[in-house]
């Protein structure tokens, strides 16, 4: 059975693909190949001479403990943000799906954070939890918690996790809600009559039927925490205190910023790229097989 329309020859398909191809080449393949090339070069501090050094930038990177620390930070940060933003968004979506009165208002309010720029979101959380100015920080302090994200690395990490999660919940919520509303009502009713209590119904019917949505969101969220959270980290903690919230992508920027270590920075971004490609490939190969029904 063939459902797709066919074009004869190559000209029309190529023309149709051209804009997409052009964008991908200009904004992805070209910079990516530049980064790969850069990662094999060593440039002196004044940019006057460059030398081709093979994998020296890489070996040097792996010998540095800060790089290993940034790696651990990234794992902690990404896992928490993904798990929290997905599960909280799912909870909200399930609640909104129950057609309660005021559901529309509730939905609209939940969608707002998505329209906030990452840096603005960062500033918002920074103020709320600022040890001397922030309302919430004072609340914590009055509870006897010595809250200070400027000095305490764990506090700083918690703060960026919260800010990044908050920012992503609304996006996930929208997709989960659409996914929930696409489940036929009669299937749920059949399960009700079949004696499945709400919790069991959720785990045996709703959650499996949502899995294509969950899978899609997981991929999107991983890319989000790896790359898009840069703005939040930069405004909230600037990677500090003493590198406690420095993630891999933040380190790429920090190291490349002064132009002091372009080769090392390029090597880092290549590693990051390979990691994301690897994870996405794994997801598509193994998880997607399970989610199709």
């Amino acid at each position, binding site marked *: 059975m063939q459902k797709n329309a066919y074009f004869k020859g190559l000209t029309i398909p190529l023309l149709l693909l051209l804009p997409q191809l052009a964008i991908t080449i200009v904004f992805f393949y070209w910079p990516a190949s530049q980064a790969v090339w850069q990662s094999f070069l060593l440039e002196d501090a004044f940019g006057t001479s460059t030398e081709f050094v093979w994998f020296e930038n890489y070996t040097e990177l792996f010998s540095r403990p800060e790089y290993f620390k940034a790696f651990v930070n990234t794992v902690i940060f990404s896992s928490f943000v993904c798990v929290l933003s997905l599960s909280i968004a799912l909870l909200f979506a399930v609640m909104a799906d129950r057609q309660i009165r005021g559901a529309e208002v509730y939905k609209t309010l939940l969608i707002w954070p998505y329209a906030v720029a990452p840096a603005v979101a960062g500033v918002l959380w920074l103020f709320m939890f600022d040890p001397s100015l922030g309302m919430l920080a004072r609340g914590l302090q009055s509870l006897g918690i010595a809250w200070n994200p400027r000095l305490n690395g764990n506090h700083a990490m918690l703060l960026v996790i919260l800010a990044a999660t908050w920012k992503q919940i609304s996006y996930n919520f929208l997709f989960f809600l659409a996914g929930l509303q696409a489940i036929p009502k009669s*299937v749920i*009713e059949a399960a009700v009559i079949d004696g499945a209590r709400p919790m069991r119904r959720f785990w045996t019917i709703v959650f499996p039927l949502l899995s294509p949505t969950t899978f899609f969101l997981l991929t999107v969220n991983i890319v989000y925490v790896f790359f898009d959270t840069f703005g939040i980290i930069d405004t909230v903690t600037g990677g500090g205190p003493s590198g406690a919230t420095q993630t891999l992508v933040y380190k790429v920027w920090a190291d490349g910023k002064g132009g002091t270590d372009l080769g090392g920075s390029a090597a880092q971004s290549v590693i990051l790229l390979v990691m994301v490609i690897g994870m996405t490939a794994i997801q598509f190969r193994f998880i997607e097989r399970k989610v199709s029904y």
Partner: protein
Amino acid sequence: MAQVTLTHVKKVYAGGVEAVKGVSFDIPDGGFCVLVGPSGCGKSTLLRMVAGLETISAGEVSIGNRVVNQIEPADRDIAMVFQNYALYPHMSVYDNMAYGLRNRGTPKDEIEKRVAEAARILAIEPFMQRRPRQLSGGQRQRVAMGRAIVRKPQVFLFDEPLSNLDAKLRVQMRVEIKKLQRALGVTSIYVTHDQVEAMTLSDKLVVMNGGQVEQIGVPSEVYRKPASKFVATFIGSPPMNILPATIDGPGIVALGDAILEARDLQQDLAAGTKVEVGLRPEDIEIVTEGQAGSLPFDVEFIEELGATQLFHGQLSGLPFVMQAATGEVAAQPGRLWITVDPDRVHVFDATSGTRLGRA
């Protein structure tokens, strides 16, 4: 097993739509009750109240002498077959059927036994490991039936289960559902807007219109003595002809110049009262021209149905249809003289549409 009783059941939806306006009837243990009526008359709403999927605004539903108004659907001991089947798309056929039993903690070997038996009855054994999307409409329908019968419930509820099937399969499944229900002896409520399904399946027929019951009875009785003009035109295909008439005397109605005897007509009606007369297309008899009391019928065109033919035309200026066995009447346009057996003449009140029958 259980009988089902509905007492003054009402449903008002949020927003004020009164979908069911006080319905009462009961179904004996093992009975097959069909709810039939036009779209939007509240059939599904009524069924869903019995299932527990809609709250009951007023009145009482009881299953096997237990009032179930406040009881969860899962605890009402019912099974439902939905119009779109509502199979669990991510589960195999086997798991679809086993799900309800697993939720109730039925032992594994008992589940296997029951599912295997249902699969055998419904002839779906070859598909047990497939997903619903890998089945045809008819096979899905069987799985939905299987999911209902493995539970061995007290009541089966069907909401237009055959309306997504093609005509031929529909006839076949209709017969199978009837056989299955007989064999299992489970009390059933079946919703449809197809009057052929309604007539053939039910041993108790409930005709609904606008949220109210128009008539309850065994199908042959509903067909022979429709309680209202609505029922008369809804049950029977092609629908009954309705003609304006006046009372001419006890048991006699006049249609223009022609006279018809109606044996079931209420006796004490004043002559000249305006009424409506109902004549079924299949009850029309041809008589020789000029026979006393006969009606002139001008045939315009003929529809072939195979075993029978439909004669369309006009009777004193109004559209009229007659059905006759093929070959019995010459199939050509022209004037025919007709009459109807006095036992088969139905008379209805011209305004309210209720049957003017003998008490």
